[in-house]
């Protein structure tokens, strides 16, 4: 602090001034008013409700288009949205799941999705006899995003998105990616996981099963 600073400090530090009479009136009015709630406090109070609403919205957006099918011995699985007919392919053993496929492995893309026939009836209640079974739909021709994951011995789970789409949208792809990561973290024996095109998967699985079937 230099001399100038010191001069101002010592002279002005105790300086006082008498306020106008209306200053207290303002203070008096201000004290009588109900304190205004700050925007930040309002946002902070609403945050939990917004979070719950976001979760509900997310579930409402994605739940109707997704199902998990877990196949276990002797269990019947219901595929209410799957178009008919459903063909059960029963691999013999040790079917590897290779989702890293070359374009030449697949048939040419199908044209726009055909109208799905809702002939579900009895075929939806499929008696399954082994945990190594997978359900496929041979007549399904549209592009459908699928999440397929399996154990070392065979494909055991197929989690299809029943929303028929030409292309997997970013939102669906993002959700499936998160689901895949969750599964791989929670299920230690999962060896293959991925988001695939239903037609491509069916084609590839049939090819692989064909090579393993005597």
């Amino acid at each position, binding site marked *: *602090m*230099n001399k*100038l*600073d*010191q*001069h*101002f*400090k010592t*002279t*002005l*530090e*105790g*300086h*006082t*001034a*008498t*306020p*106008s009479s*209306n*200053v*207290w009136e*303002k*203070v*008096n009015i*201000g*004290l009588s008013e109900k*304190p205004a709630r700050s925007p930040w406090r309002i946002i902070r109070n609403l945050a939990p409700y917004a979070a719950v609403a976001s979760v509900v919205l997310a579930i409402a957006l994605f739940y109707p288009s997704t199902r998990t099918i877990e196949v276990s011995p002797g269990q019947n699985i219901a595929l209410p949205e799957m178009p008919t007919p459903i063909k059960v392919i029963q691999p013999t053993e040790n079917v590897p799941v290779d989702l890293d496929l070359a374009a030449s492995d697949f048939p040419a893309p199908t044209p726009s999705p055909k109208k799905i026939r809702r002939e579900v009836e009895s075929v939806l209640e499929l008696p399954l006899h082994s945990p190594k079974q997978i359900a496929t739909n041979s007549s399904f021709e549209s592009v459908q995003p699928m999440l397929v994951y399996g154990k070392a011995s065979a494909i055991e789970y197929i989690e299809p998105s029943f929303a028929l789409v030409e292309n997997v949208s970013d939102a669906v792809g993002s959700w499936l990616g998160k689901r895949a990561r969750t599964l791989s973290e929670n299920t230690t024996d999962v060896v293959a996981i991925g988001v695939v095109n239903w037609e491509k998967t069916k084609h590839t699985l049939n090819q692989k099963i064909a090579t393993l079937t005597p």
Partner: protein
Amino acid sequence: MEHLLGPCRAGNRKAQKALYDLMSPVLLGICLRYLKREEAEEALSNAFIKILTRLDKYDGLGSFEGWMKRITVRECLTYIRLKKDLDQTDWEGDLPAANSFSSEADHLMALIQTLPPGYRAVFNLFAIEGFNHNEIAEMLAISPGTSKSQLSKARKLLQERLNNE
């Protein structure tokens, strides 16, 4: 003054008025170092409302007067920031002749009020309140370098005015 704390916290308006009568001249003196008279009185009323509505936040560790002064200084700085006056570098008004003031304090107060708002704020905070440049930078949302530069310019302007009188 401390004896007024309890009744003021309880919302006793007479006690609040007594505290105001006691402290408002001191706090207005602070406001006038940063702001023009009209603005200073507005800042004082806002500061006093905050003081009287936040008495429960005074922890009693430091002096009560110091706590009130800090609230007042921050209210003045808020006022300056809201007006976006910190970037002004022009002198504000003419300074009356030195011999027209009744006291040296009035003379220096008038001199300080002719400084551009940003320079005035930095000079007050550094020279009178005793804050360092890092603290000033944080309070005024400027860099420490800007604080140093504005202090230097404020000193130079004040010195020139004093020398010319």
